[in-house]
Each structure stands twice: as structure tokens, then as C-alpha cells.
């Protein structure tokens, strides 16, 4: 076998001009380079100047909004009986937390949403796997799911009340239903879009059908499943808020209903803040999950 000619490295002095350290470069050199006037310099990212770090820049927008809201209440643009000021909301949050009312309500609501997510998640993912992995499963399941998903699930509330009464069951069922569909759709798409070349390669490695599912198809579908998880968790909170309007005798929803009766906008706003923070917390958990499970993926993090 012939070996190709080795490419000669440039002589040392020639190289120094190309990649010598910038500090050692004589000050006159840039001017000495002619014919570069039309070129654009590539700036190393380490020297790109960041005046304000990102963690400082990010919260500025929301803080400005809060300030605007506070000013609006102070100046009377928004009456205090219509909209409580941020300061009042914070104080109310303090009271509600102190007397344990809020903690209890959160626990009840979390239980509802947790049960719903669990039931809906298991149903959505297992149906999707059955439909994605087996031809018979697809024939039996997919058409029905595709048909049912066009029904807006919130519209099922009256039916659920007739079926399940006004206890916990219709609330959990509504959350489960809201969660199941996005999870099903994303998982199914994930399974079906696994790279056929990888499946083929894995088959030549002698993987069994089970090994193929475990090592190739499930990990290949995982990014899609996680997209489904994030989306469906968002839906879960939405479903919870709707569900808790059904005669809630406990939970955050009940706090809000009571507050509505007494025109306590501060309590309503405090509850909304709690909903928002719970949603944020869950989103953060999913992000962590993604980072752990998808660490193999070189992610684009923006610039």
C-alpha cells in the first residue's frame, strides 16, 4: 500500500505570523497588512464584551412590569378594589402562608394534578407505544385517538360531572385527559420517526426485538416524549384550573372561589401567582430531566 506524501508543516517563522500570540505581535503589523480593508474581522467570543451578565438582564423585563402595575395602583389608574397592588399581593401571600391555608390548598391541588398526570401519562405513553411499535396496535388505537383528540377536553366537564359527580374524580379525570393526548401524539411521532438506518444497523448487531426497543427505539423517541411531557404539564395546570371551578371544596380553586365572593382581588392574584410558580417549578424539573436524559445531544443554546 502506498502512503501519500506527507504535507510539510510551514517553517517556524512563517507560522508565527499566522498564529502567534496577539500580545507578541508588533503594533505596526495590522497596518502592514494590505488588501484586508474589505474583510470583516472574526472576533473571538472571549473578547466579545458583555456589559451586563445574563442573569441580571433576564429579570429586568418582569421587574419593570411589576413596577408599572404598582405605579398604576398608586396613581389610581387601577382602583384598589379592582386590582390589588403587588405589595398587597405579597402581603396576602404572607398571611395565607402563615395561617397554613395556602400550604393545605397547594397540597390538595398538587395531589389532584399529580394523580391526573400519573394516570394520563401512563395511559398516553403506553397507548402510544402500543400503536407505535405494533401494526395491530396502530390499527386498533391510532384512529380512535386521532378522532377523540379533536374533542376539546374542557367541553367534557358537564359529562364528567354526570358520570363522576362533583368529588375528586372528575377533577383528576380532566387533568388525566388533558395530559394523555399531547403525550400520546408526541410519543407516537417519536417512535415512528426513529432513524430507520439506526434500526437497520442495530438489527445487524443481532439485537433482539426487545433489545431493539430498549436500546434504539425508546431512546430515539425520548426527545419527542420529553417535548410531550413539557407540553402536557402545561395543559395539566390549565386543566386543574378548569377542574377546580367544579364545586371545589378544597384546594387553590376553592381559595379563589371564596375570594371571588368577597371581592378579594389580592387573594385571587396571590392564587394566580401560586399557580404560575407551580407551573414554573414543574417546567424547571422537566428541564433538569431533559439535561440529564439528553446529554448526548449537542444542544443549540442561542447566542
Amino acid at each position: 500500500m502506498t502512503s501519500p506524501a506527507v504535507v510539510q508543516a510551514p517553517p517556524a517563522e512563517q507560522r508565527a505570523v499566522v498564529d502567534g500570540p496577539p500580545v507578541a505581535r508588533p503594533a505596526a503589523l495590522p497596518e502592514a497588512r494590505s488588501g484586508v480593508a474589505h474583510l470583516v474581522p472574526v472576533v473571538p467570543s472571549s473578547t466579545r464584551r458583555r456589559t451586563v451578565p445574563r442573569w441580571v438582564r433576564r429579570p429586568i423585563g418582569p421587574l419593570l412590569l411589576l413596577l408599572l402595575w404598582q405605579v398604576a395602583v398608586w396613581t389610581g389608574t387601577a382602583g384598589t378594589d379592582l386590582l390589588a397592588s403587588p405589595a398587597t399581593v405579597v402581603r396576602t401571600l404572607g398571611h395565607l402562608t402563615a395561617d397554613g391555608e395556602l400550604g393545605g390548598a397547594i397540597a390538595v391541588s398538587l395531589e389532584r394534578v399529580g394523580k391526573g398526570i400519573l394516570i394520563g401519562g401512563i395511559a398516553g405513553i403506553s397507548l402510544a407505544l402500543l400503536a407505535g411499535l405494533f401494526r395491530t396496535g396502530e390499527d386498533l388505537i391510532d384512529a380512535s385517538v386521532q378522532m377523540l383528540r379533536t374533542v376539546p377536553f374542557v367541553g367534557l366537564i358537564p359529562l364528567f360531572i354526570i358520570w363522576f359527580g362533583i368529588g375528586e374524580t372528575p377533577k383528576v379525570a380532566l387533568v388525566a385527559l388533558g395530559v394523555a393526548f399531547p403525550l400520546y401524539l408526541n410519543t407516537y411521532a417519536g417512535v415512528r420517526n426513529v432513524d430507520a438506518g439506526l434500526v437497520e444497523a442495530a438489527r445487524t448487531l443481532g439485537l433482539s426485538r426487545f433489545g431493539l426497543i430498549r436500546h434504539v427505539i425508546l431512546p430515539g423517541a425520548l426527545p419527542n416524549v420529553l417535548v410531550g411531557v413539557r407540553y402536557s404539564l402545561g395543559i395539566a395546570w390549565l386543566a386543574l384550573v378548569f377542574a377546580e371551578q367544579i364545586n371545589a371544596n378544597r384546594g387553590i380553586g376553592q381559595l379563589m372561589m371564596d375570594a371571588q365572593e368577597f371581592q378579594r382581588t389580592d387573594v385571587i392574584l396571590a392564587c394566580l401567582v401560586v399557580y404560575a410558580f407551580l407551573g414554573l417549578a414543574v417546567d424547571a424539573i422537566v428541564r433538569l430531566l431533559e439535561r440529564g436524559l439528553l446529554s448526548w445531544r449537542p444542544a443549540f443554546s442561542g447566542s
Partner: protein
Amino acid sequence: MASSLQRIVTPVLDPEPGIDPAAEAGLEPASGYRPPADPRLAVSVRGLTRAFASNTVIDRLDLDVPAGQFVVLLGASGCGKSTLLRILADLDTEIGGDVRVPARRAVAFQSPRLLPWKRVWRNVVLGLPGRPDRARAAAALAEVGLEARAEAWPKTLSGGEAQRTSLARALVREPELLLLDEPFGALDALTRLKAQDLVWRLWRRHRPAVLLVTHDVEEALLLADRALVMKDGVIAHSVDVDLSRPRDVGDPTFLALRADLLGRLGVDAPRSVA
């Protein structure tokens, strides 16, 4: 002996589909074909047919590859080389005829096809029986010069590194038959030369039978014991490359063989050698 080979498929065009008890018992099939009494075969194909709808790509093809032989398969684009390789890899079973290959075989494709969610070393030992064996992976990676990248994610490998990983993954199975479908096709010229050299050294050490598909006649003649030209659905030409190794592209016999093969591939005026 062909009876040591596994009959991988129940041909769908067989008049009597179903499991052939004779073949199951390791006996020769009833087709009347008698395997030659000479050394063991790594591939034995008789009357292979493959059609896509009305397009018959492989038409009653016969092929024997002795154990340990390095065979290169040439042919015009679209003549069915990949199709044949996929059949030998048991990836395509919509066939007629009788195909026998060893149970231990491995494939490397034009693209490396590594699982991006498994670290390099886990990719290498994927599918081997038992627990993932780190030491075994390390040994295979060392053979292709990649022991340092064992813990890397496949997406961080260069094209050549990924292709070498794919080779390590094939070799760790200690195949009796190694199927390579243009494994160097996507590599730059320099990396390609190194990869050819690597394949040749690995072949010399492990001695699997190799079936390498390529478009490069020079590559074929540098590596092969035997060069095949595929045309009209059959092996139209087979030539033994009786040149000592390492081979010299300037050797007159080499040049004559090259001109002959290029002619058979429909390239009339051989390019001049640099």
C-alpha cells in the same frame, strides 16, 4: 463446507414456503446443489432473485466466497450492489433463491450509524451477549486507534473517527463475514487512504471473509483477493488479483487489471496515473 452456513431466509418465491427441515438440521437443501468439497465457504448464493415491483434488480445470481477471502464488488450505480449486500446481511428477505451466510457476520455502512445516545464504547459492544464489556470495547477501539475516545458521545466524533468506530463495532463481533458498503465513500482522500490501510491490516489479523462494495477501482485492486463486477443482475465478471502485498499502483500488472476493470465498468479511456 456450506453446511456450516446458516440459511438465513425462507425465500418468498420458493414454491413451498415454510421452514425447510433439512436446512434446519444443517443439511443441504433439496435444490440439487452440492457444495464443493474444498475449504469452507463464507457466502454461498444460488439463483438469487430480487425484484422491486416489476424492476428485477438481481436475476438468478450465483456467488461463492471462500472463508477469509477479501472480495471487492464493483458495478455501475444502481446495478444492485447495496441490494445484494443487504440480502447477505439478512436485512432484506423479499427474495427468491438460496442464500447462505455464516451466523457471525457484521456490516459497516457508508454512514457510521452509531447510536447518538450511547457513548462510543457502548456502541461498540452493543448487541453482544452478556453485560456490556468495557475491556472488550477498549481492545476493539485500540485496534482502530480510538481508545482515547471511548467515553465520547458519537456526535462529537469526526467523520473518520465515527467510521473507525463503526469498523470497531463490526470487528468486535469476530465476524466470519464482514460486509462493507462503501465505508470510505464519505471520507476525504487522505483519511480514505488511512482507512483502507486500516481495513487491510484488520483483515490480515482477523481474516474474516470481506465483501466490500466500492466505486473506486484502484481501491479495489489495492485491497482485494478477487474483484467482482456486477451487471444486469448477476456477477458478470470475476478476476483474481494475484499481486503481492503491499501493492504498487504503478505496477504494470496492476495497471493492466485496472484498465481491464474500467473497461468492463464502461469507462473506455482509462485515466492516466499520476
